[in-house]
């Protein structure tokens, strides 16, 4: 005997009194947003909330699933009953049916964040009559009669526009992508579906982790709420022990590795890779230079001996990063790029960075790494050190200086510098 199936074609699913799931199941999906994989497909969760004065529709579904969505929606309300359309997030997986919904319910007003307003034109290409749009803030309250909608300002989870919708009277949190996961299961409720724990964590790690600080500030708002049910935009509806998922987010957003260095110590990580030992000797010199600076703890890692993932955890907590690579075929080498391309998973903006490396005749690696560090929004205050083939004592001393100066930046003791860009051609260079 199989467990009861909640989701059947054409039927909405009640998740609370007069509140229905009107989403769609996409069991065959295996890749999402290019960057995620899913072993279980996904669901696009949309909801209809009824009060005595009308209905609010919270989010829609991906365009291909519009028919499923409307079949469920029209089974629980008439178009003219819809007073409010709430957009918690404009990504196409939640706004695919919006243009049609706007036409079907022309009297409905659209509630969205200030950031969403700026993106809406890009999503609904025919535009939306401005008189229908309501930009919400913490004081906005949409009265549906007997129950009302409030909005939490939770930007960057994981787009600038994201917000959560809160129904105080029933303790319902419509959280958008937050607390969601790509896990399609027709049993719908977290106490009925298969084990989705890894999908939940995986979704956090790939979608929310780069915005850890925004997650923490959202949790500060969410944790005090008397939540009875969390209705996310993907995956199971969390009705059993919903707060355990809120707590899990708090755990996930707390640094994975306790920092060995104390509060007052800054951490500098030196990563290198080396075929003949030249870049390796430069790495030692960079480390030696940095270690001479009080208050900085330096660590040295050979990228040939490790996978990117654990280094990403270290980098998330570090204050400064230095990368050393030889130039091979006109480029830095793949393990360096693998690590650098993994850094979109964590926040590195504002950390200090530098590069160094040995080369034979063209020496592109250092400049390319520096460009990438700047692209990742690091501060790169010191030009990197490039050495032709085997480093001399003087060249190793330049590496030591680079390490020392970067470490001085970390502790705020860098000597001020002056650069004159008014020399002819200086700005063009």
């Amino acid at each position, binding site marked *: 005997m199989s467990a009861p199936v909640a989701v059947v074609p054409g039927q909405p699913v009640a998740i609370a009194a007069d509140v229905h799931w009107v989403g769609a199941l996409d069991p065959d999906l295996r890749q999402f947003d290019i960057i995620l994989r899913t072993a279980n497909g996904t669901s696009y969760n949309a909801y209809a909330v009824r009060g005595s004065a009308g209905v609010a529709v919270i989010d829609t579904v991906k365009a291909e699933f519009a028919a499923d969505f409307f079949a469920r929606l029209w089974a629980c309300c008439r178009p003219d009953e819809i007073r409010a359309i709430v957009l918690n997030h404009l990504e196409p997986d939640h706004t695919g049916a919006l243009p049609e919904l706007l036409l079907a319910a022309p009297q409905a007003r659209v509630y969205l964040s*200030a950031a969403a307003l700026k993106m809406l034109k890009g999503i609904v290409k025919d535009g939306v009559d401005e008189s229908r749009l309501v930009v919400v803030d913490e004081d906005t309250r949409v009265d549906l009669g007997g129950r009302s909608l409030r909005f939490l300002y939770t930007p960057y989870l994981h787009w600038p526009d994201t917000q959560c919708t809160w129904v105080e009277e029933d303790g319902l949190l419509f959280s958008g992508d937050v607390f969601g996961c790509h896990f399609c299961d027709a049993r719908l409720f977290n106490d009925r579906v298969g084990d989705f724990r890894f999908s939940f964590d995986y979704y956090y790690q790939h979608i929310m982790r780069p915005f850890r600080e925004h997650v923490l500030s959202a949790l500060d708002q969410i944790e005090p709420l008397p939540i009875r049910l969390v209705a996310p935009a993907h995956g199971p509806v969390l009705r059993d022990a919903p707060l355990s998922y809120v707590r899990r987010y708090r755990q996930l957003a707390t640094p994975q590795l306790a920092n060995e260095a104390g509060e007052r110590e800054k951490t500098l990580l030196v990563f290198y890779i080396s075929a003949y030992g030249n870049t390796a000797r430069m790495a030692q010199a960079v480390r030696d230079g940095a270690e001479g600076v009080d208050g900085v703890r330096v660590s040295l890692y050979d990228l040939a001996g490790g996978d990117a993932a654990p280094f990403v955890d270290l980098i998330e907590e570090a204050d400064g990063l230095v990368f050393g690579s030889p130039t091979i075929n006109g480029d830095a080498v793949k393990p360096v790029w693998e690590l650098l391309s993994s850094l979109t998973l964590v926040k590195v903006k504002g950390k200090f960075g530098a590069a160094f490396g040995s080369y034979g005749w063209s020496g592109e690696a250092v400049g390319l790494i520096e460009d990438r560090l700047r692209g990742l929004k690091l*501060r790169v205050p*010191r030009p990197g050190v490039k050495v032709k083939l085997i480093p001399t004592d003087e060249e190793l001393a330049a590496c030591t200086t680079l390490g020392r100066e970067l470490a001085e*930046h970390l502790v705020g003791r860098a000597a001020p510098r002056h650069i004159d860009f008014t020399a002819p051609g200086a*700005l063009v260079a």
Partner: protein
Amino acid sequence: MPKAQVTFEDIGVTVTVPAGTRLIEVSEKVGAGLTYGCREGECGTCMMKIVSGSEHLAAPSVLEDQVLKDIYAGASNRLACQAQVLGGHVVVRPG
């Protein structure tokens, strides 16, 4: 040539530049922590704080004013991709 000075406080670097230079033209060259998205005054990514010398910057355009308002910027904030230094000495930092 009329000149101006800009200090990027977060990295302790002061530059001398021709008057009329936009900060975006130098901040990346020296490795300051100002970051850019659209580079055209629309996204607000490059918001910076003027620590001193704001009177030496060209007045913000209507577009810049609107974006600063949209991102709830304070009175001492400007967009680094837009702000043009006209002379004197301006001190800036990210944020």
